[in-house]
């Protein structure tokens, strides 16, 4: 284990622990950014350049911004003095400690783990693109479909409540409130047009 690896790992783990334990949600989001950037540095130190930069673009760039927006949109000043932990938190800590002990024991006691790095491969973007277009073409298409469906679904879920809704949401969430608005909206707009 080299010194850079230890430094990056310590920074990443401390930032992750801070993201999970701080009281202020904005501080949590910023600590999460540090943890994800540390993970990107770990990927880079493991010769996975494409994944490292994809991590920075997707997580540090997009997911962190989404989380900050969600924190700001759901800000409530009602209960600043409330405890931040759920009632059964001790049990949760014990369970995660047991999980860590099991995983760590398995990592330290497994026989046959490779001990030294093989010579560094050169996974250029061209190789990755070739594989994505040949061997992994079906997962790539499925991922594209999944991303499209998920993002459209996210927009529909997060839309304002007085906007016209799909039938499923009307039946499931707000039967009394949104059904009249759904009926009332088209006449008013068509009346304005005529």
């Amino acid at each position: 284990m080299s010194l850079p690896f230890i430094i990056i790992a310590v920074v990443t783990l401390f930032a992750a622990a801070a993201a999970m334990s701080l009281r202020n949600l904005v501080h949590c989001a910023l600590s999460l950014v540090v943890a994800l950037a540390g993970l990107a540095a770990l990927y880079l130190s493991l010769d996975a350049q494409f994944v490292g930069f994809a991590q920075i673009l997707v997580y540090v760039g997009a997911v962190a911004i989404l989380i900050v927006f969600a924190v700001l949109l759901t800000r409530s000043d009602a209960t600043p003095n409330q405890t931040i932990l759920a009632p059964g938190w001790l049990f949760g800590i014990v369970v995660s400690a047991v999980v860590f002990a099991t995983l760590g024991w398995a990592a330290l006691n497994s026989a046959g783990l490779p001990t030294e790095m093989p010579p560094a491969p050169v996974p250029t973007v061209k190789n990755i693109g070739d594989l994505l277009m040949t061997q992994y073409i079906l997962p790539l298409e499925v991922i594209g479909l999944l991303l499209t469906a998920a993002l459209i679904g996210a927009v529909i879920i997060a839309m304002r409540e007085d906007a016209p809704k799909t039938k499923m949401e009307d039946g499931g969430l707000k039967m009394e409130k949104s059904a009249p608005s759904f009926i009332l909206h088209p006449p008013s707009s068509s009346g304005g047009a005529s």
Partner: protein
Amino acid sequence: MTPLQGCLLVSALLFAIGLAGAVTRRNAILALVGIELMLNAANLNFIAFWRYGPNPEALSGMMVVIFSIAIAAAEAAVGLALIIAIYRHYRTVNLDEIKNLKG
């Protein structure tokens, strides 16, 4: 301790931190952040085994991580949209106060 075991230990600790946060925090956004940390720990395992494995030219571990990052992005978008919809309905994101299925 070999470098691969170091990576595996870091990943295990990251997974445990994420699990503890997802289980114990009351805020729904932080539960989602904990899930993201657990996904990232799994990604680190994939990259470490890909790098130290016998055949890194096949790029299979890296492919799994690329798809996993895409799925995690979709999960974060849908999860945060759900949290915003729940906040609009209940005026809170405290997981202990969200008890009703219909109301």
